[in-house]
Structure formats: C-alpha cells, structure tokens
C-alpha cells in the first residue's frame, strides 16, 4: 500500500466527516432542533411560524405569579431594556429564579406571549456580588 493510497483513504474519510458535520449543522430537524436562534425582543417580529427561539433578559421585579392550582405553572415579565414580554413557564424552576434574576428561556412565541419549556438562570449573583456592610445592619432584626 503506497503513500498515495493512504492519502486517498484519509482524505475520503475527512471529507465524509466534514459533509456529515455540515449536514447536521444545516439540516433543520423540527422535532429535536439543536440550533436555536437567540433573539432580542426588538427582533421578535422576525420569528417564523413554529420556530423555537431563545430569549434572554431580566425577571421584572414583582412580576412572578405562581399558579394557585399548580405550583409548577408560573408567569412573569421578561424585561430587556425598554421592552418586555409575558412568559409562561411550566416545570421545575431553577433555584436561582427570582426577581431581577438574569434568565434565558427557550420555547415558542405565540400571540404576543412566550411559552417556554426551558428556563435557565445565569450567574449566582450572591457570590460574585458586592460585599455586605454588616456593621450597618440592625443586629436585632437578625
């Protein structure tokens, strides 16, 4: 087996690999999309029908409403600068989900609201945050 044959074999394999990766990258798979557009709220009108998208933003303080009937159901306003959008999420909420938390939601945009099936929080703010001035706390309230 000469050098040429080895080169041909290896390049064929490499080519196959590249084609395969390209195919998975650019062939949409509706049931299980691995690639999702990350949009800002001002771009939300560009959403195609049934397209899954991601949004990021802050939880509007005081907007979290948890359903009386089912604690897993929750509504909140996602704020992004001037814009905001109501989000409906059903499922287990991450531990760090609260007012002003930075969140990423994934799901569908339906009639002006966002129905999310994934909710992630970013960054444990307490631990990267400012130091506390304990001297100024009223110790009796602790």
């Amino acid at each position: 087996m000469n050098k040429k044959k080895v080169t041909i074999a290896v390049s064929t394999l490499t080519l196959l690999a590249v084609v395969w990766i390209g195919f998975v990258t650019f062939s949409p798979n509706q049931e299980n999309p691995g690639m999702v557009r990350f949009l800002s709220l001002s771009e939300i009108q560009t959403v195609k029908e049934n397209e899954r998208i991601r949004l990021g933003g802050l939880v509007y303080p005081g907007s979290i409403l948890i359903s009386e009937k089912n604690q897993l159901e929750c509504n909140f306003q996602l704020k992004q600068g001037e814009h905001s959008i109501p989000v409906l999420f059903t499922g287990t909420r991450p531990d760090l989900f609260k007012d002003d938390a930075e969140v990423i939601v994934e799901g569908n945009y339906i009639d002006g609201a966002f129905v999310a099936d994934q909710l992630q929080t970013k960054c444990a703010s307490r631990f990267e945050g400012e130091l506390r001035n304990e001297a100024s706390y009223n110790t009796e309230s602790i």
Partner: protein
Amino acid sequence: MTPVLGSISLSLALGVAFISILLFSLFLKKSDYRFFIAGWRATVVVSALTILATLILLYELLLSNFDISYVAHYTSLETPTFYKITALWAGQSGSLLFWLFILSVYTLIVLYQYRNSYSKLMPWIIIVLVFVQIFFLILVNIVENPFMPTDADFVVINGNGLNPLLQNLTMAIHPPTLYLGYVGFTIPFAFAIAALVTKETGSVWIRSIRRWTLIAWLFQSGGIILGGWWAYQELGWGGYWAWDPVENASFMPWLTGTAFLHSIIIQEKKGLLKTWNMVLILVTFTLCIFGTFLTRSGVMSSVHAFAVSNLGPIFIVFIVIILVICIYLIISRLPYLKSEKRIESFTSRESGFLLNNVIFITICFAVFWGTIFPVLSEAVSGDKITVGAPFFNRVNIPIGLMLLFFTGVGPLLAWRRTSKDAFIRNFSIPIISGIAIFIVCLIFGIRNTTLISFPLTAFVFTAILIEFQRGINSRVTRFDESFLKALQTLIARNRSRYGGYIAHLGIVFMFIGFSGQAFDTELEFALKKGDSKIFDGYSFELVSIDPVERPNHIAWIAGINVWNLEKHLVTTLYPEKRVYFHLDPNPEKRQPHSELDIHTTIYKDIYSIFSGVDIEKQIAYLKIMINRLVYWVWFGGYVLIIGTMISLWPAKEY
C-alpha cells in the same frame, strides 16, 4: 503583613522567570554549563515562589482575613474549614494561581527527575515551562491578583461565603483533578517543542512524553468523570453531560490527547506518523489553554463560567503566539519528521490506529465547531444561534459508535498485515456475540440507537476478552501456570498493553451507560401528603414533609415511599428543598437549593427532585426521573481509571 508577602513573591517570581530565560539563552549561546546550572536554579526559585504564594493565600483563607478581597468574596466565618481550602480554586484569580501552582509542582518534578538526562533537550524543555509560567505570572500579577485588598469603604466583618452548590466533596475534588490534567499536558508540549527546536525527533524521548501524557490524560479523564458525577448528584436536571461550552473545552484536549496516546504507539514501534504526533500534542496543549480561556473570558455563557473579565484578549494573544511558534517549528522541521517505514496494508494495526485517529479528530472538530458556532454565526450573519445538546448528540452518536466498533477491531488486527485465516479466527466469536445480542434486542422490541450500540458493546467486550484469553492460554501452556497466575503475570509484564485493554473495557461499560439514556423517562407532578402517583412501573407515595433547621439553612424533607407494582417497598427517597442563609435580614441573599435523592441499581436510577412546597396544603411538587443504566457510566469510569493506572505503573525489571 503576609498578604504583602504573597504579592511580593508573585512579582519576584515573574522577575526571576525572566532571568531564568535569559540565563538559558546565554547557555545556548555560549555553551557555558554554569549558565545552565544558574538557569536551572532560577527555575527552582520561580516554582518555589509561586508555591509559597499559593500557601500564603491558603493561610489567609483559613484565617478568614477579609482584608483580602478574594477571601472576603469566596469564604465567610461560617464556611467549614475544608471548604475554606477549596475556596482556593473557587474564584477567578485564585484558580489562576492554582493553575500556576500545579505547573510549578510539575516543573519541579521535571527539573529533578531529568536532572541528568536529555542534556540536549532539557534547556528547551525548561524554557518552554518557564514561558508558560511567565504567562500565568503576568495574569496573577497584573490582571487578576488574588492578593488584592478588599475594595470597600467599611470593615468587612464577614465574607460572602462559598456557593452552596460548590460545598460538596466531589466538587472539591473535580476542579483540581481537571487542573492536574489540563496543566499536565504542558510537559509533553514542552518535550515536543524542545524536540522540534533541537531536531532530536528520534525516539529517545518517546517514553517520557508518553508517560507524562498518560499522567495528564488520567487526571483529565478522572476530572471529566467526576464533573459529570457532580452534575448528576447536585444540579438536578438528571443528566451528567450537557455539551456546555466548558464541558466541551475539557473534552476537546481529552480527545486529541487520546488520539496522541494511540498514535504514539506506532511511532514507537514503527517510526510512522512523526509529524502527525507532533501536531497532535501541540494541538492538545493549545486546546488546554483555549479551554482555560473559554472558562474565564466570559465569551460563552455557561454554568461553569466565571464572571465576565478582561482576561480574554491576553489569552487570545497567548494562543496566537503558541500557534505561530508551533506552525513555524513544524514546517521548518518537516524534513526531520519523515517516517521510517510506511503502512503496508489496510488490514494492519497501523491502519487501525490511523483510522482511530481520524475518528477522534472528527469528534473533536465536531465539538469545536458546535462550541464556536454561536460566535461564528453572529459574526457572519448577525444571527446569534445557540447550539444545544441535540446537535452534539446527533453529530456524535454515529461517529462515537464507529469509534466503539474500532475499539474492538483495532487490537485484533496484526501489525503490518492480517492474514485471512487470522481474520476469521480473531473475529468470528466477537461477531457472533454481536449478532446474538442484536437478535435478542430485536426480540425485545428495541428499535432505537441501542439496537446498534448494544450489539457493538457485546462485540468489543468479547474481542477484549479474547485478547486476554489468548495471552493467558499461551502462558498456561508454555509455563504451566494456573489461570490466575497467568493473568497476573500477563498484565504485570505488559502493563501498558493490558492496562490499555482494561481501559477499553471501561469505555465499553461507559457506552452501555450512555445507551441507557434512550430509555429514560421523567414526570413532574404535585402530590398531596398521603396520596400516591403511578409512573413507569412504580407508585410514589408522599408520606411526610418535615421542616429541619440546620446551621446555615432550613430544609423541607419530603419522604417518598416508592412501591413497585407487586406492592413491595423498593426504597424511601428523601429529597430536600433547602433555603440557605434563611436568617439573612436581606431576603435577596437567601438562596433556595434543591437537594435531590437517588436510588441506584445496576439497571436504573430512581431520581427525585423536590421542586416546590405548599406547606399549608401539604403539597409537594416533585420531579421523578427513571434513568436507565447510569450506574455503568460510573463503573466504566472506575475501570478506565484502574486500567490507565496499570499502564502507568512502573514495570518491574525482569
């Protein structure tokens, strides 16, 4: 006083590091051995100073000296002593210092271990190591100094404390293990650069480079597996691998490192693929630095990422410098990297190794592509596209299965050429066992990827057993040894080979575990105390919701009886909903945390998460997952580690 000492030792170390490089350049120019000795000693001093600085930071963490910003940010008075120690690598600057600390320890080992060997390579090996040290010294001196004083206009009485998610034994071991891996690849990198510069591309240094790569690889594998294990036990999404950018960052050098460990064998035995091996080890190190960059720069959002920082540009400069040097050296040294022989046949072990390399590199590229795609797509089309686990799974499952297949085929092929008879002799039993499992899967109605993966694991498993059996048989007949004695001496006398096969067995077990995912199920539901819910062959009965107060948190513990459909009690699960720092006057600072509970068997895990609680109505919101065969991932991990350790164990002289 001591924090100043820490800062001073770091700046001194940087200064001495430059002196050390200078001394080595003088040695290379004037060939005066005294310069070498001086440079060698200067390098010892650099390493000792960084180790001293690390110990000082550790001391301050233990003392809770909140005048140091790092100590105030990552520990508090309530942090248990053990986690004060682990806080050393919990934050950005501390973890950079820790990187440097490990590099310094490795450097000292290299300095003393090869004091009297590799006289031509050593100056260059040390120069490369010091060069990398300088980069990290610049980072901890200028950009992210861990000894920075606290920036607050008040006396800090108590620090912020360590994230409860990180207060976990695995989480304490996972980062240092991974660091030992990442940093460990610096040594083979230094060997490779030294070999290229001095044109000593022969085989003298292969044993050392292979050993060091294997050590780094062992820690890298261990670190990755521990990370998965921690995520599974602690994060509560029921999985162990999310294809998160930072996970990918640790996986990529592992892949190229694995490829290197295999292809270096052909260089050792056949003098083939020299250029390729050089490229692999250089790429592996570059990927290690790239991984450190991804974690720290804030380019990618990820659960692992540290806070956004200005480290990015410096890392990019460093990576570019490394790449330029590597590419220049490889191209200019091509004539010295010619193969001594060539591959003779497709059905040879050589071509098996070659194929293995192509597959590893393909997986690495696919992972790299998916990881940087969001950045690329935003630059090209302006659309920010996020790439999730489904992409990585879809791309990698077929390639991974191919890799598994060749894990079985490779060792059965003979060097140079496999004869037709040998082919039939070696492959018939593994193929038959594969087909048998395929038929069993068909009968059980399996119609997903496991219809391919289970037969493949059977094929590879039998192939490895046959390899052992052949070795044992020949010893039993030749030396009249007992079966166990033969097995023992067989492994003892060919540690690297049979250790490798044991590591392959570990991979097979892990693939069984990965396959189990195809059958996973999950359900989220609300359950009132006393009620039960049937799901996937089990009945979950909520028996109790008890509040418990502990030193730094309050917990509600759900007691869930799990019954099987024959009405036998399988287990009782106690997942917890905790609120940390519940006494903190500022409600913003209180942090909820779900502590899950898992019932593990070799067939399946019953995984329970306590999502929420309604105390008045006595309702618990639960998420139950039935995860199949996960146990095998961890078991395979152990086997992989043990096999690698056997390979590494120094051989007795016979």
